[in-house]
């Protein structure tokens, strides 16, 4: 084989790995910065309209702030 093939695989796997790790790291640090959701069994003050699975009980954003973070 020649260097082009190995380079292609290394660049692809390396870039995807770095991107995946950065997403997981950013997600974890964002969770740390945010306050904890209410404990199980306690009703949240407002149910979040569009929180994904795993964010149950997280405080809902104020009206008009359904944002565009991505």
């Amino acid at each position: 084989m020649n260097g082009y093939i190995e380079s292609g695989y290394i660049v692809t796997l390396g870039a995807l790995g770095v991107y995946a790790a950065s997403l997981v790291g950013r997600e974890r640090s964002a969770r740390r910065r945010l306050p904890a959701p209410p404990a199980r069994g306690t009703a949240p003050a407002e149910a979040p309209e569009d929180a994904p699975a795993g964010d149950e009980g997280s405080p809902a954003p104020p009206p008009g702030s359904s944002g565009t973070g991505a």
Partner: protein
Amino acid sequence: MSLTSPPFSPAGTAGPARAAEAPAPPRGASPGRRRTRRPRTRADSALTAVGLVGIAGVVATVWLGLWVTPPDEFMGNLVRLLYIHPPLAWVMFLAYGVSFLASLLYLWPRTRSARFDRLAGASAEVGVVFTGLTLVTGSLWGRPTWGQWWTWDPLLTTTALLFVLYLGYLALRRVPGEPEARAKRSAIAALVAFIDVPIVYFSVLWWKSLHQAPSIDLTTRKTYVHGSMAWTLLLGFLSFTVVFAWLVAHRYRLAVLEDREESEGLALALAERRAEAPEAP
């Protein structure tokens, strides 16, 4: 700190009503800092499983592509780059397709939801990563095959244009503004940028191109690879699709957290301003 103190309320202020109901951090923890571990949900487990399947698939593709499949009659060992290059390009199309559909659903008044806006942004961002990798692996294949790293071929040029268009789309999403207006203009930009996607795909058929025709022609359903090469290519397509799903899911979750952070930061700023204001007699 009292057990009823809201984590995000500045001292001496009531803070937003919903923050007051959030549990206090454990003793010794600074206000606003989370110390307890979030309980693992089914969604977390499912996402981990998807990630592991994606990694296993990619590892198998690399193993088959580099060590098991035979060299090509014409391309020799360079064919091994094609076990990752077309799958990367496929995911690029898929990502922009998802972004297009999500943007369409956001713009449609009956289905308008921040979910679709986030999904469009998440998918486009992952798509940009895959477009970059498609261009890089294509260039690495082109250098020994065509004798040059880059040529202004219709397919290459339209793909580079696609990369720039979606980079612009991601930049537009970061322009400050009222959230709904920001989401709407992003959705319109995604629809406009998507016009280039079919042009990229059909460019090798419409114009004279250095680039070879697709190995799997979606219009005629013909395949031009066979045997272990075909299976490895198919595995590459499936594996990178799973990896795409995992990345989009994580990017979406991050977007939810970013939105929460933004809204709670706003609530905190409002609470601080209210606290600073002199009380009415």
